[in-house]
């Protein structure tokens, strides 16, 4: 088994009109999706969410408060999974709720 990292990205402010109902369903969907990976014994770690604050160090010692990416897209959370190969890892990523809100999952193998 190799380790992979799922990186969730979403468009910034793409969902102004999220409703109470959608919020609840989305949370339930995340839970279901994660549980499915967990039950297969393929969850590496829950990962973490990146806080939206932080600093960027640029050449010449320039430190800014961001933005971290120039386009209107934000890097949300990440998660570690275990899979035989990249294809299997990609299969696990299917059904990830970030896709429902127009986001994407980046799947990157870890060098060990």
């Amino acid at each position, binding site marked *: 088994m190799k380790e992979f990292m799922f990186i969730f990205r979403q468009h910034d402010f793409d*969902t102004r*009109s999220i409703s109470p109902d959608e919020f*609840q369903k989305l949370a*339930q*969907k*995340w839970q279901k999706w994660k549980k499915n990976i967990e039950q297969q014994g393929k969850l590496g770690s829950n990962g973490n969410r990146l*806080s939206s604050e932080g600093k960027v160090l640029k050449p010449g010692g320039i430190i800014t408060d*961001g933005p971290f990416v120039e386009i209107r897209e934000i890097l949300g*959370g990440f998660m570690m999974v275990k899979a035989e190969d990249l294809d299997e890892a990609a299969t696990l990523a299917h059904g990830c709720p970030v896709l429902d809100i127009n986001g994407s999952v980046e799947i990157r193998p870890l060098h060990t």
Partner: protein
Amino acid sequence: MSTEYESLKQLFQQEFSKMVAVISKQFGLQHMETAEDIVSDTFLQAAETWGVKGIPENPAAWLYAVAKQKTLYQFRRNKTFEEKVVPQIGANANTTGELNFSEQSIKDSQLQMLFAVCNPAIAGEAQIGLALRILCGFGIDEIAEAFFSNKETINKRLSRAKEKLRAEKVNMELPPENTLAGRLDNVLHIIYLLFSEGYFSKTQNQVLRKELCAEAIRLAILLTEYNRTNLPKTNALLALMCFHASRFDARQACSPEEGFILYDNQDEALWDTELIRRGIRFLSRATQGSEISSYHLEARIASLHCRKEDTPEKWEEILDLYDQLLLMKYSPAVVLNRIYALYRVNGISEALAEAEKLKWDNNHFYFLLLGELVKNDDKKRAVFYFQKAMNLSKTQTEKNAIKQKLKEIQSPSL
């Protein structure tokens, strides 16, 4: 599916409005949409994090912390912020400090938001729509359902309203003393409409309708927490809503097809006695001044309806209240209700004579009343009137209720 996630909808409704109000208070009402974005984004992050890691012990505190970060980030990364936004906000706004999510700050912000949103500069329907979204945390789809409309129309209506608030440079503050009374009247009126929207709603979604009524009551309670807005008429409106809401479950038929259960057939055991008690409390506070508003009269009428036994005195008092109400606030509904009270006090012929003078041929309530007045003496005419009423009524709920009446009148047991 895990049950702990089932309360998230309510949490959203409670916290969405608080956060939007606090952020808008800090950065100015013209940034209301950015505030909505930040809060929506906070909830998206919550959905992901809580879905994966479980719901934290204090979800509200979690939301506030994330919203704080996002707000700082959002306003800082906008390079023009310092140059363009800060001068617009003016000297009073606190642009450097953190958002203040203390209980008092949340309440103050919500009250100011209530006055900002219930602003006569925008159309009445838009005020209700904005209040539902910004103050009650409803989804656009739910608002569309409540108004029997679609998402696009509601979205357009809300953006136009926000645009108007920006153009009018409406601020988040309580109106100055000299205009407060008039502005409060408008806020009370919008809350009254919001409640009616729920109580007599076009939608058959019972849960949604009950939520509309509960939110109207919540907003009015918010007004009673401030000396300047805790006036007799505020309490009278609250009393009125509590009395009506106490019958919510009793008038709810088992299935939407049956329409509402009419007053005479309601099971008193289903009346909510706690709400009636609260109504009585608010009504007694409402009478601690010299002012009598239309809400006072309506609340008193509603309180009499919370006693089911029919005494001549009861109907005499109701008729007297409708007479006063008619002078204060003329409306076709008041006229028709008054005639019904007249029938209970002075008999059919007098009431019928008054009703026939009206000739309101486009009003389905008018035909309902006529049908009601003649149904014991002339079934055929009553059926004719009820059918006319059914053809004129605009919502399925009303049509179903009238169908029920027709069924009763045509059944051989009567």
